[in-house]
């Protein structure tokens, strides 16, 4: 499978993401600049990395969601191409409407960078099949606005449709997210948004490789 990484001014975990995808898939992902209006047909996985696109000077992700390249991402997503948004990428996916809900300022009102534990809430998605159901994995977070919120009906339908991919363990929820939600997929199951940074836990130098299976799953490198 061929991966691409979206580049927007202000994103800053793009190099981390490119390194992770390269190490795991054996080939460097294509990079796509903000002004591109189309994405090649042979791209099977699009990743929007973390950072502070356009400084996050409006609502996080709001400016990014209105750039030409995001129209192209939406078109690909609607055709079933896999899309992962991590951290600011998750915020951008929410702003484009590809995923439901919003990310508010952390309950602590402070930026938080630490390792948390995640429960794999649904191991049946395209992004989580490399994990077992209910598996607890380690993963770092680094964000100021990761407090997932949505209306009660949407929350109920997310839960009913098993769209919650990852949850913080209750004792490590770093931001006050509803239902400890750390990552969700869309109803079609091909778009994942998550606040934690699996790309920062993929090798011995990171002190573990719990994040690796996510990318292996998304890249079709595990047996479904």
């Amino acid at each position: 499978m061929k991966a691409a990484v979206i580049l927007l001014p202000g994103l800053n975990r793009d190099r981390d993401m490119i390194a992770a995808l390269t190490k795991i898939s054996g080939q460097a992902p294509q990079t796509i600049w903000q002004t591109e209006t189309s994405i090649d047909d042979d791209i099977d996985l699009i990743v929007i990395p973390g950072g502070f696109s356009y400084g996050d000077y409006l609502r996080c992700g709001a400016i990014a969601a209105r750039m030409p390249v995001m129209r192209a991402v939406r078109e690909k997503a609607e055709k079933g191409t896999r899309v992962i948004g991590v951290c600011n990428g998750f915020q951008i996916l929410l702003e484009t409407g590809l995923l439901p809900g919003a990310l508010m300022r952390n309950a602590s009102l402070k930026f938080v960078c630490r390792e948390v534990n995640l429960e794999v809430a649904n191991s049946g998605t395209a992004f989580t099949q490399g994990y077992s159901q209910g598996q607890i994995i380690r993963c770092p977070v680094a964000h100021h606005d990761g407090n997932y919120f949505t209306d009660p009906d949407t929350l109920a339908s997310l839960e009913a449709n098993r769209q919650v991919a990852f949850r913080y363990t209750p004792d490590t929820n770093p931001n006050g997210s509803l239902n400890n939600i750390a990552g969700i997929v869309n109803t079609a199951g091909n778009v994942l948004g998550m606040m934690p940074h699996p790309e920062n836990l993929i090798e011995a130098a990171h002190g573990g490789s719990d994040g690796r299976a996510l990318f292996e799953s998304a890249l079709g490198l595990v047996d479904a």
Partner: protein
Amino acid sequence: MTMTKRATAAMTIPNTIPITEELIAAHGLKPEEYQRILDLIGREPSFTELGIFSAMWNEHCSYKSSKKWLRTLPTTGPRVIQGPGENAGVVDIGDGECVVFKMESHNHPSYIEPYQGAATGMGGILRDVFTMGARPIAAMNALRFGDPDHPKTRHLVSGVVSGIGGYANCFGVPTVGGEVEFDTRYNGNCLVNAFAAGIARTDAIFLSEAKGVGLPVVYLGAKTGRDGVGGATMASAEFDESIEEKRPTVQVGDPFTEKCLLEACLELMQTGAVIAIQDMGAAGLTCSAVEMGAKGDLGIELDLDMVPVREENMSAYEMMLSESQERMLMVLKPEKEAEAKAIFVKWGLDFAIVGKTTDDLRFRILHQGDEVANLPIKDLGDEAPEYDREWRELGGLSPLDIADVEEPEDYGQALLDLLGSPNNASKRWVWEQYDTLIQGSTLQIPGGDAGVVRVEGHDTKALAFSSDVTPRYVEANPYEGGKQAVAECWRNLTATGAEPLASTDNLNFGNPERPEIMGQLVMAIQGIGEACTALDFPIVSGNVSLYNETNGEAILPTPTIGGVGLIDDWNQMARIGGAGAGDCVILIGGDGTHLGQSAWMRDCLGRCEGAPPSVDLMEERRNGDFVRSAIRNGQVTSCHDISSGGLGATLAEMVMASDLGMKIDLSSSQGPAHALLFGEDQARYVITVPADLGSYIMASAEGAGVPFRHLGTVSGSALQIEGVLCVAVSALRAAHESWFPAYMDTPTTLAAE
């Protein structure tokens, strides 16, 4: 006349107003300094010219009080590529690569406006590093605040920490180390010292020296506004009650623009278009243009009508002194202009040709058709006043007799009190607000001896970073304290297994016009110089911040040392928490004997007495070299140096980090338990090694003439010191982790304001 009034008034002040004594004083220039200006240019300066002189000749930019002594520091070594004098120091790390680093203060702005002051301090030091062609890979910050009970302290801590995080996190550099301390002496003047390091190719270092006549001088980055007008002059003045009026001199940071500027500059540098580059930091356009011209023996002509501005009706004076952030000045190869411009347009940044290099050695400023300044460019820097200020010998306190210090009734409680006191408590509340992991290269986050990041593109190479100073030691004896700051930094790098390469100094002191303050500065520099020489740890960059006083009371003398070390193979790196059950615990260095100026006496007994511990640099080196070589041989499972809090704090920090207890027996040590546990004798480490290697390591130590003591074994879930104390690791952690969050969660009223 206050700064605020002056900045506002400048809009209407024409360039040709008479220069009054009041105006000269408001620019921080002494009458004799003004006379020097008259002698140099042979006429009365214009208003803009006065501003330019004031910016170039203030303490912050000219180092006029410290230059004489800074020259005595060791700044060279086999690995040093660039010492002090450029934007940052450059040190060879092999394989055609180098580390570029510096530490700089942003004390006064951070006290006036903590968030923006700290944020722009971070922004400034990052710019210093990438101006030289290096991509920043690590940051640290050393923060010092007033008494926790002072009504302003919480507000400053909160603002400074979120300001540093707000900038560094958004820019995308991991913060891997630093210090946070409290002392009443910083009540009216907090310290914010920011460090950044980057990696560059040794054959692609960019300097500020302009070359070639008639070449375009290009302005890059953000637009110029009125923020920070006179900032460098403000940073060179003492504070008094009018401080609130100085808020408009604080700059406002935009980390998003800085991130774009980083990418654009690195991209542009690859095209070969850049001849010279200088960031606009203190005194903005003035300092950067003069620096480029003077270093290259060239004149510079600037046309201010071409400068991108974000406010209307800015005067030449304001444009020349603005400290708006995220701006660069470059001399470019004319044939590459279009290519260069395309890169900046792509990143949404301003690109404007604002002048040219000339052969007449003049600094000419044109504005709206008038020549508003025409000054001899070399004299602005070279002829800046330099003072040999009067200084007084200090120190001379005798060591405290430990018999004068009563032993605590309950050693367990004493240790808990120490670990839970503001200066010794965990700083997790602070560093969890910094992105410590971005770039995916961080091997050790804050909380250990040094931060460590691996070097991209290499399988095993890593760099270690540490920032250190013990101001209470420097106060008690500036010479020994200066030595100790260097030694502790060197020791912290060593404790990870790193080879200390070089250092940067950030010298924070009070008013140098007072002989006792000047004595602190002079003697601390002497101590620093001696230690850097003895430990082969040259100073390659630095910054001096003087006049850190409020209403005549000076801060504790605080010469912060930031150090960089090289790890060949991070698989053999030591961490504070790596011990395994059954490991042998060994003290490297002598027993604790010295309680004077110790953290325990200050923080638990309220006593700051006697001489600080002295530093034997030969012993420091011998013990450190032994520890490093054991780590590099893969024999050490964990290591921690002994510093503030003595052996007791070191053992406690190790058991908390590994989450395994220790059984320790001090019965073969000499002396009373309080000195053994809390004494701060130097050149000491605690290491743990696999049980079967214990005898071998101790025999090696003996052979190398390194003092050592077998302390005990890693075991259980408590720190147990036979006959002295036994405290559960969980209880230690509760005490250590609780102070900071509890303090910051207490509602605060700024009644005093």
